[in-house]
């Protein structure tokens, strides 16, 4: 058992569920880039295969304090981020580890969503915030900001640096604003102990 803890649990695995064209692969890349900025070992990849606009697409991130080499799929993520609430009732949404967390993008609350969570769950209206702040329905910066605030997995400035590598000028400023606005909507460090337990 000790052996398993050393190896497996040093690694945090995240799945981001979205639909083709909504940018969840980019969200996974940005989260991994933020991990890279924080000096972590990272890997991000989409669910393999042809991409179709509108079809369910999963993207994955691994972040670890120590080097890892595995290339297998992530079947039991520590955390799941659901970019599109219409995916909530698909069978693929299962699999999150019970001690982990699920972050949902929706203007509704859990009860209205009729979603029975398998882990701790938080909901933020990321698309509405994005429309308000960016003028575009792109929820990535909001979801990642809220996710890092909940988990404390990486310092927020690592995400700022990753965003600064992708965007500049007004677009960057608005994305940083969106990230911060979403982060304020969740309880800081609420899921932190799961991460710490995972690092033992």
């Amino acid at each position, binding site marked *: 058992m000790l*052996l398993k803890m050393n*190896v497996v649990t040093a690694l945090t695995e995240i799945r981001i569920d979205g639909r083709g064209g909504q940018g969840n692969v980019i969200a996974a890349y940005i989260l991994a880039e933020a991990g*890279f900025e924080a000096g972590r070992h*990272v890997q991000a*990849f989409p669910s393999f295969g042809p991409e179709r606009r509108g079809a369910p697409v999963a993207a994955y991130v691994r972040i670890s304090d120590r080097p890892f*080499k595995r290339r*297998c799929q992530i079947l039991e993520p520590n955390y799941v981020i659901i970019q599109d609430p219409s995916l909530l009732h698909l069978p693929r949404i299962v699999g999150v580890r019970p001690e982990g967390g699920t972050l949902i993008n929706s203007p509704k609350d859990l009860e209205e969503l009729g979603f029975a969570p398998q882990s701790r769950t938080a909901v933020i209206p990321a698309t509405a915030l994005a429309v308000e702040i960016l003028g575009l329905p792109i929820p990535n910066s909001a979801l990642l900001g809220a996710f890092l605030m909940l988990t404390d997995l990486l310092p927020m400035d690592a995400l700022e640096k990753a965003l600064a590598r992708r965007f500049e000028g007004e677009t960057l400023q608005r994305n940083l604003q969106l990230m911060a606005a979403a982060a304020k909507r969740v309880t800081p460090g609420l899921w932190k102990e799961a991460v710490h337990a995972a690092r033992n």
Partner: protein
Amino acid sequence: MRLAIEGSAAVARAVALCRPQVIAAYPITPQTHIVENLAQLIADGNLHCEMISVESEFSAASAVLGAAASGSRAYTASSAQGILLMTEVLYNIAGLRIPLVLTCANRAIGAPVSAWNDQQDSMSVRDAGWIQLYCADNQEAVDITIQAFRLAERTELPVMVCMDGFVLTHTLEAIDLPTQAEVDAFVPPYRFNRTLDSRSPLSLGNLVTPDYYTEARYAHHRALLRAQEEIVTTDREWETMTGRSCGGLISVSGPTDAPVGILSIGPVMGTLSDAREEYASLGPVKLIKLRSMRPFPIDALKDACAGLQRLIVLERALSLGAGGILGSGARAALSETPSPPHVFSFAAGLGGRDIPLGIYPRMLEASKSEDCARFAIFDLELDKLAAEDR
């Protein structure tokens, strides 16, 4: 420069650092991002190169053959059916001893059509006379791409750089990208000494009678065998410059006296390496990573397998009706040694089927006695087949 970057984008940057003069390619998943990124680099003025849009992979291969024969540094990339459509030209490129570099973003072959990864495409053309090098991660994909231009030009043999589709091409990870000055020093300007030039005419690709064909084949075979030394030297010199080796022809990790070895190719070696740590209680195991499939490093493989009682070969492609391709090669090579290990050939990850860490204990279990099947396809779900096909 260290950066977090998608594998395809990293390979495109590596290709651009080698200053190709002509690129011709036809888009096919999962190769597409490589060529898209190169097109972007050209469009942005960051790479001065002729990009030829073609109507098929046959034409892509033909265009780069012509470009290289007329003295340009040339590059193409493809996958799966695209590689098969190139096949006639691939043999010509090699037989004409044209130096060029091709990236194969490895994908399964149809039918049935699969967009997902295995290595059936490049393995199907392993006998075309190219050097074939396989990448275990995206850092290697960058490093081997740059090594490939130098190797091709020094050996006058084309080099196919094989990287698992999706598993590497679509995965973002940290990469150390060498500087332009480093790559310029490693891959200096090159002049093909058989350049087609009207001022000094010569012919390429003439009809050869039985009087000469055998000698041509001998020379080509010998050139590939001799390339082993150049592959090792190039990797060593790369290591001197960058501090990174890609493992020469073949590389071994783990205790030298381990009774069991696992031989495979490509990024699955990473999964096996993590699995070995995870399942350390199962005893010492040598992991043997083959980088050069052609030339096939018989002597290096014998050395790598010395002292093993069992060798498990994890196959990522099949010779249908015969079995595993890598396993057959390994068996033949090791049969020349005084006490060869028992060789077990297990295929996995066909057409994108996940290869989890758990394959490691299952392979060890499936090879624990001499009576175990010597060849097996793993993870079969026979109930998916009609009764007569089970």
